[in-house]
């Protein structure tokens, strides 16, 4: 079973290596006004243990990927989201739930959120 650090590194490298995605990718809970935008933020939401038997174990790991952009660039945001979908599906993650959008007033930005899960064996 991979460690969470290895999983995070795997996701980071995959997002970073995609030439159509922005370069600004951070492992943080939420950005502040000090961060540069546009920005992609990702983190682990939950890890649910599945089995642990005879030295073998597995868990379900769930990531959240947030894409922050400007109000007038919704089409660009959608394009970035499509790239994130390709990258995460390439890593064998499955998208869970929808991809809601929110206005973040304190940053004056729009964020598109997606959640992903995989079985870590």
């Amino acid at each position, binding site marked *: 079973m991979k460690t969470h650090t290895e999983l995070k590194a795997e996701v980071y490298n995959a997002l970073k290596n995609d030439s159509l995605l922005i370069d600004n990718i951070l492992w943080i*809970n*939420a950005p502040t006004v000090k961060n540069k935008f546009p920005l992609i933020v990702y983190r682990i*939401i*939950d890890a*649910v243990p599945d089995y642990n038997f005879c030295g073998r174990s597995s868990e*379900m790991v*769930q990531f*959240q990927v*947030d894409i922050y952009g400007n109000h007038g660039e919704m089409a660009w945001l959608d394009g970035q989201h499509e790239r994130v979908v390709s990258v995460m599906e390439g890593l064998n993650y499955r998208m*869970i*739930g929808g991809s*809601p959008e*929110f206005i*973040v007033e304190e940053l004056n930005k729009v*964020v598109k*959120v997606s*959640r992903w899960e995989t079985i870590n064996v």
Partner: protein
Amino acid sequence: MATAVNQKEIERKINNVIKVVARSVDEGLEEVGQRGVTIVKINSPYITGRLRNSMGYLIKGEIKGSSGSPSDIMKSKNIKNAVVIGTNVVYAGRVEYLSKTGSAGYMQRSYNQLKPIAEKVMQTAIKGGIGT
């Protein structure tokens, strides 16, 4: 003549089993709803209690388990063979996805905790109904 009676008898027994399973599914879903609302309320962040109290479950067109104000309770729909757990509080989605205080993902975590419980509850309910 004997074949026709047997066929009717078989149909009658099959219909009885279907009714028993349907009743068992309803009972199982009711228990899943109650347990699910408890889990979600425990995991919901709390300041004023508005979000926590608004959590309820929808089963057969009826909302139960919520003690919030009427505008905060989710709207009723007649959904068959399912239980829906949730809220109508306007900021519930923002807290779920964007909260910075560690509360983000409270619904997802609740679902993760409830899923194995729900499977066992439904298995027990249906097996109990059939009598196995």
